């Protein structure tokens, strides 16, 4: 043959074990992680609830009263209590994760995690108190 034939060395694909879709059930650590990420669903639910209430306000008094009735139905209260637990779980894991996600250094030394976590909770209590105060003023 006149032209050069180009050979490549044959190598089969490296063997990779297939990861099961249920990998997150194999260890409690993984399951806790997935549960934490799943709290995005209760958060989205409450956002949609808030949007629904704003819509009722725009539509008028009758719509507003109907929404209040709907929110007061036992099924919805039970569902919301359950999902409220999810929102609380989101808040707790979020505040506890903050110092690990962003390291704050003051004068070259790393601020201890507990200080950041304590500040987070302090701000949370202040904001919550303010929100509840506004609600009490309007009702």
């Amino acid at each position, binding site marked *: 043959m006149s032209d050069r034939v180009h050979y490549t060395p044959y190598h089969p694909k490296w063997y990779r074990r297939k990861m099961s879709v249920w990998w997150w059930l194999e260890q409690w650590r993984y399951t806790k992680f997935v549960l934490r990420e799943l709290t995005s669903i209760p958060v989205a639910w409450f956002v949609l609830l808030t949007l629904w209430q704003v819509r009722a306000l725009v539509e*008028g008094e009758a719509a507003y009263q109907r929404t209040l009735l709907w929110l007061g139905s036992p099924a919805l209260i039970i569902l919301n209590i359950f999902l*409220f637990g999810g929102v609380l779980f989101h808040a707790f894991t*979020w505040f506890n994760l903050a110092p690990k996600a962003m390291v704050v250094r003051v004068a070259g030394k790393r601020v201890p995690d507990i200080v950041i976590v304590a500040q987070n909770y302090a701000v949370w209590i202040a904001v919550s108190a303010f929100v509840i105060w506004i609600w009490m003023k309007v009702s």
Partner: protein
Amino acid sequence: MLKRLTPLLWFLFSAGGTVAALVFPAHMFVTTIAVPMGWLDAPSYASLLDLVRHPLTRLYLFVIISLPLVHGAHRLRYMLYDVLKLKHLTAPIVAVCYGTAVVGSAAAAYFLLNLP
């Protein structure tokens, strides 16, 4: 293009998560547990409308609707990638997740600008 948007999306994710963590427990407790259970009186339509008409309240409501929606969309997207191994469905997942966030934010803006 998604690669260039990723830092912005993570920023919105963290902003939404912080808003949700700080504000939602109190707000949700009042509107979905305390008021329906009768521990707190439900605000009358007129007084609640007065409160919501204030520009700061409108801003507050818009922020607590739009940012946590982006947060949830972002988290759901990565959950579908990692937990359910759906990385090959990137295009529809991105469209549905962030599309919902955009539609929800647009709806919130529309309602908050058209209060009676």
